[in-house]
């Protein structure tokens, strides 16, 4: 497999240095831009496999850059942001970011997010049978097995699970999940989502209270993880 190219758009030289060392040692090719304008230009000249975008850029807000990129750029974009308002993150995710990481972030976490974003984008059609520990989810036959035993899911539970699975590794906002599973009329009924997430965990997780497959992204949404870190 050729080296995937990653473009970092961040105004902080220290963060760029850190990312460069981390990513190059994981075998990626790294390019860097210190402003939004420069980043867009570099992405347009030679589209990278993945972009890491800082939300707090000096020239233009990261949100604007994200929107401009998403007009034509289809590969994954991971947002970096200093711990701030959740609404900021939700906005970025709803505007097409694939994932986000808060500064300060853990290196292992960053690598896992990059891997899963790249995996998703290389594998557009998606695997139809997903194995995850002792769990087997078959999206064609619409069956879920745990330790080879069939697990009965209700229609809504299955729809929710399939949306999560198809976006494996990606943070899905409450808004996105409610719209996809229940429809646009339900986007404010977050309690539905919590009920069904709790039910899915009860059926799928080893310990529903310490979930390893359906992870909560506090205040933002949920993430389905196949290979827990």
């Amino acid at each position: 497999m050729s080296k995937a190219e990653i473009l970092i758009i961040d105004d902080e030289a220290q963060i760029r240095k850190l990312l460069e060392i981390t990513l190059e040692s994981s075998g990626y090719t790294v390019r860097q831009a210190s402003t939004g304008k420069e980043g867009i230009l570099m992405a347009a000249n030679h589209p990278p496999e993945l972009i890491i975008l800082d939300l707090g850029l000096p020239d233009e807000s990261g949100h604007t850059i994200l929107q401009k990129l998403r007009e034509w750029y289809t590969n994954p974009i991971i947002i970096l942001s200093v711990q701030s308002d959740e609404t900021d993150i939700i906005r970025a995710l709803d505007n097409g970011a694939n994932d986000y990481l808060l500064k300060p972030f853990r290196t292992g976490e960053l690598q896992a997010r990059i891997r899963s974003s790249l995996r998703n984008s290389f594998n557009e059609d998606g695997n139809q049978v997903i194995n995850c520990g002792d769990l087997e989810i078959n999206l064609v036959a619409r069956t879920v097995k745990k330790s080879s035993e069939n697990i009965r899911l209700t229609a809504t539970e299955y729809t929710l699970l399939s949306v999560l699975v198809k976006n494996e590794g990606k943070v899905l906002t409450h808004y996105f999940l409610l719209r996809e599973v229940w429809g646009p009329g339900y986007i404010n009924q977050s309690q539905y989502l919590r009920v069904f997430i709790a039910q899915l965990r009860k059926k799928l997780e080893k310990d529903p209270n310490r979930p390893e497959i359906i992870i909560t992204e506090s205040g933002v949404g949920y993430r389905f993880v196949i290979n827990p870190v």
Partner: protein
Amino acid sequence: MKELLFNKISKPLQYLFSILLICLVAGICFILSDFLNYQVVAFVLLVTVSIIAVSFDILPVLFAALLSALIWDYFFIPPHFTLQVGTTEDSLLLMMYFVVALVSGVLTYKIRRIEKIALQKEEKANTIKLYNTLLNSLSHELRTPISTIIGATDNLLLNKSISAPNKQELTIEISKAAFRLNRQVDNLLNMSRLNSGFIEPKKDWCDINELVYDVVRRIEENKIEQAISINISPELPFFKLDKGMLEQVLYNVINNAVLHTEAHCKIDIAAVCHVDVLQIIIEDNGKGFPNAELEHVFDKFYRLNNSKAGGTGLGLSIVKGFTEALGGIVILENIPRMGGARFTIEIPAATSYLKNLKNE
């Protein structure tokens, strides 16, 4: 106290009170004018103006002085019911009356202003004291991890002969220091959020089980030695409240218990619903708090005497601030007989039993 009370009375009302009081006193004096010498009346009116001066602003006082002088002249100085003054003595008296009324008015006003300035100075001194406490605890709490990072990196950069295990150990220390710094910065940011006064809870349905387990998982990531147990019914309803703020409250209380109890101690967390009130109880079996200091632990920058564990003294004051911003209360007590501390957090919130909803 009385002055403060009167200061709140609006200007027009002060004029009105001045007029009424002077007319009332003058009226009584007029009724008694058969028994009172008009020179005595001057003294009575002067006293009235002085009383007004104690409480009111300078302009209403001057107005009262002028008004009382005119009334005295018109009704009391012979010839009556004219502003004419009969004798030179009376003219002199009237002039002196006016001067004395003015001077007493101006003097009392000045005294009150000096008092006000003194009060402001005292407040400022208190603020500076608080600020210094903050700076002291901050510089300690921030500089300790910073020193660790600088020292350890210096070692790694300059000391070529450093052994591999030492290298590993220094790196771990850098990592620990960075996390400690991050924690303190979080606390400071939260504190300034509280101080700004613009803190509005963002309410959404919240699964308390999920939240508590999540907080405990984050705390356990720090490789703690205490055992944390959680006792919450899966049937607990959802509560509509600000999840981020409640998370912060629980994190700080549990983390405080971790920092201030011995390694073998236990920390128990329970949550129940009492008619639209969420009650969370966090108990430990450590030594508890010294009784004399119980009421101060939520104060800003308060650290227990002889506290060896670090801290800016912000953690628990944020607990109190956020709990109150959520409309709730937090109570701290030592557990009778057993020892150990018990934090009880109660937050009123709408509940939803949708959890029992079986499927569409």
